[in-house]
């Protein structure tokens, strides 16, 4: 009964979404206030219905209702409760429902937090979100119904893929989806601007926090996925240029370009068309990602069993969204206008360069991701594009971005002077060069690429500090340094924190790429192996039992300089419900390095107490990769909470509700 209620609520929400996607938009166009006023209640109703539906599916999982096909395929009565809840999004249908849930929540939040926006604008934004929601609801109802019944009911579920039975699964998809779907708000704002032909500084000020929120979630979601792959997949890598990783990275790159271009649109009124185009692109790439992951055209960790109808549906939806929004853009962009002029050397031109490079980076990822599909579709053969391609392309594209990141904050709007900037940043360059020479030597070996990475990281941090000090000195006005430092605008503080996050990330990538060490070796109990000064002694393997698996648990003693540090217990698990083994690595995490042990296979399968193939890693600075991402998100959060998004927006409300135009 409950699954039927969930299904029914989903159908109702599709009808509500259709109303939301049509009447308020028409109302805003024809000035029918009653239709415009429908937007908020309809968005609220849509969110409530989808939330109810999602709760019904969760209930089916928690209650082990194996008469629902989706539950029978992705759960098991032995599955611990937290994974039964997370199992809701452990397969295609449920993760799609999660996607829709997120979309309706974003719409609900916009409805709640948009009191200061003109009503027609709210109607257009929510109407656009309603249309997007309607498309996805049709998709789930016609091709991927999670509430489909199984008759007769299964006695036992097939279980959740053991890879997904991990705290990472509980967090990674919701964060990532919040990010993906969050760009639909930026998209909706862009469409609303095109529809009304009104794109001013106030518009940019409304869009900025929403775009930033989506970007923060996407950053955290990607970082979480990377960390999960690192410890759970047992390969010790943090990024594989897997097509699905790329699918999430492309909207991130464009989203990053978008938050920078929005800054110009807000401060200077420039880049208007470009900003709108980026907002459309960011969301389109989110949709493309969904298509790539869900259509089954890709081989990947994330590919679920597929149904060709799904791929075709998403492809049609993708073409419809991109086609109609680009058509709208072509028709309305001249009305939106280009905005203010700026000099060849100026904050604007530097941010433009940043944008162009980010778009180029995204295009190279897109090319590397789609090229194999294209070759396959043409029937020329099957190929794969591997990590070397992406690495070869990414370093030269990212180097100028990282360099300019140090200069940008010093450049004045409109017209900047190169000698003035050079004078301000020269000490940062000195610091960067010193670090680039000294640090690699400290690690024993000097590589040019390592030096480059460290140079850029130190450069970013040093310029950020110099810029911060300079600004505080300029705005002191008789106050103490600390008082002035604490009263800096949050967007400014957030920007530098996020940039420092990038530097931290670059240090992690550089150091782990240059100095990591790994050994695959056969060990008998009592034998030991040394990696980068870490001494691992293998004490053998014993059988342990988990809630729904049995495991061979190895015991290692980790020692440095003859001194015992800790025991490490990697596992090789076998889950009852599937014959699939799972490697659980043991990681000793540290500020400057991780050491990592995982069990391969017993050399003789009948003698698990004997010799094992073992992999040991030394990973310097690897945690800086995710630490950097957290700093970026934190910087974004601080910038998002800047007072001017609330105070000034409220003050501007009475004016902009009328006819104010830039």
């Amino acid at each position, binding site marked *: 009964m409950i699954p039927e209620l969930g299904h029914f609520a989903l159908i109702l929400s599709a009808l509500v979404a259709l109303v939301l996607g049509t009447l308020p938009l028409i109302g805003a166009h024809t000035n029918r206030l009653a239709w415009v006023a429908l937007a908020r209640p309809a968005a609220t109703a849509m969110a409530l219905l989808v939330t109810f539906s999602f709760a019904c599916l969760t209930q089916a999982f928690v209650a082990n209702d194996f008469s629902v096909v989706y539950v029978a395929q992705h759960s098991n009565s032995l599955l611990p409760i937290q994974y039964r809840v997370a199992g809701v999004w452990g397969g295609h249908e449920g993760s799609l429902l999660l996607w829709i849930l997120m979309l309706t929540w974003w719409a609900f939040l916009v409805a709640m937090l948009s009191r200061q926006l003109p009503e027609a604008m709210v109607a257009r934004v929510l109407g656009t979100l309603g249309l997007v929601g309607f498309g996805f609801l049709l998709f789930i109802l016609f091709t991927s119904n999670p509430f489909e019944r199984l008759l007769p009911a299964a006695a036992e579920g097939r279980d959740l893929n053991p890879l997904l039975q991990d705290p990472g699964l509980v967090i990674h998809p919701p964060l990532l989806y919040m990010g993906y779907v969050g760009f639909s708000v930026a998209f909706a704002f862009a469409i609303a601007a095109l529809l009304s032909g009104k794109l001013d500084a106030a518009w940019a000020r409304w869009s900025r926090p929403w775009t930033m929120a989506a970007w923060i979630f996407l950053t955290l979601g990607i970082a979480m996925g990377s960390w999960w792959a690192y410890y759970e997949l047992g390969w010790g890598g943090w990024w594989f240029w897997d097509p699905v990783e790329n699918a999430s990275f492309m909207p991130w790159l464009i989203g990053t370009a978008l938050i920078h271009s929005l800054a110009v649109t807000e401060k200077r009124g420039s880049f208007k068309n470009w900003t709108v185009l980026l907002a459309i692109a960011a969301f389109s790439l989110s949709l493309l990602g969904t298509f790539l992951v869900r259509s089954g055209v890709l081989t990947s960790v994330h590919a679920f069993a597929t149904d060709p109808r799904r791929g075709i549906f998403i492809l049609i939806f993708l073409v419809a969204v991109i086609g109609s929004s680009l058509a709208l853009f072509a028709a309305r962009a001249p009305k939106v206008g280009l905005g203010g002029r700026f000099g060849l050397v100026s904050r604007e031109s530097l941010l433009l360069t940043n944008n162009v490079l980010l778009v180029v980076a995204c295009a190279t990822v897109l090319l590397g991701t789609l090229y194999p599909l294209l070759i396959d579709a043409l029937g020329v053969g099957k190929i794969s594009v591997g990590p070397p391609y992406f690495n070869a*392309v990414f370093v030269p594209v990212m180097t100028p971005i990282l360099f300019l990141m140090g200069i940008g904050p010093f450049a004045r709007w409109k017209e900047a002077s190169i000698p003035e900037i050079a004078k301000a940043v020269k000490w940062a360059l000195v610091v960067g060069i010193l670090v680039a020479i000294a640090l690699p030597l400290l690690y024993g070996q000097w590589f040019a690429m390592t030096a480059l990475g460290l140079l850029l990281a130190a450069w970013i941090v040093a310029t950020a500090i110099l810029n911060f000090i300079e600004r505080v000195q300029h705005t002191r006005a008789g106050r103490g340094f600390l008082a002035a430092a604490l009263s800096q605008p949050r967007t400014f503080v957030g920007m530098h924190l996020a940039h420092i996050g990038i530097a931290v990330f670059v240090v992690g990538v550089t150091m782990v790429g240059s100095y990591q060490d790994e050994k695959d070796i056969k060990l008998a109990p009592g034998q030991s192996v040394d990696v980068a000064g870490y001494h691992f002694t293998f004490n053998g393997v014993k059988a342990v039992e988990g809630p729904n698996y049995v495991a061979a648990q190895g015991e290692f003693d980790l020692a440095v300089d003859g001194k015992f540090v800790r025991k490490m217990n990697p596992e090789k698990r076998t889950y009852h419900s599937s014959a699939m083994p799972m490697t659980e690595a043991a990681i000793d995490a540290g500020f400057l390095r991780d050491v990592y042990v995982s069990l391969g296979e017993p050399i003789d399968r009948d003698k698990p107490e004997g010799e094992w193939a073992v992999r040991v890693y030394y990973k310097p600075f690897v945690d800086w990769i995710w630490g950097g991402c957290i700093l970026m998100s934190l910087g974004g959060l601080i910038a998002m909470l800047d007072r001017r998004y609330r105070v000034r927006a409220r003050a501007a409300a009475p004016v902009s509700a009328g006819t104010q135009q830039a």
Partner: protein
Amino acid sequence: MKTRHKKLALIGGALAILGIIAALVLNALNSNIALYISPTDVAAGKAPVGKPFRIGGLVKEDSVAREADGVTIRFVVTDTAKDITVNYKGILPDLFKEGKGVVAQGKMTEAGTFSASEVLAKHDENYMPPEAAKAVDDAQKAANKHVSPSSLSQPKASY
């Protein structure tokens, strides 16, 4: 006039940079793609010499053997028509299993075996790498066997 010159310089510079980037990207792409070649095609001598490529197929039953160092592994990849011996040093992925699909990247050695630098198995026991499925499909089509080729790429329903 002056702004026009500036604009021209800007556009010219941007085009030059984009050109360099495009050249760089195409060069990187060209030297870093790996072709998929089925064991049948390898046996027919269609494998590139000295360049890495990928093979896909099934791990032949009872073919996996370990050398004395414990981490060098030898196994046979088959598309049911032709076999190819693969050498790999390292830890195999969890889902590597005899009788299951596998994809390996590496080069041919002079001895006519395949030296793999990377072995990929997928993350769901019921999931068949499409490249492996295709190699087997093609071989079976060639042999006119009446096995439904698509049955290999479909997940089993085990409830």
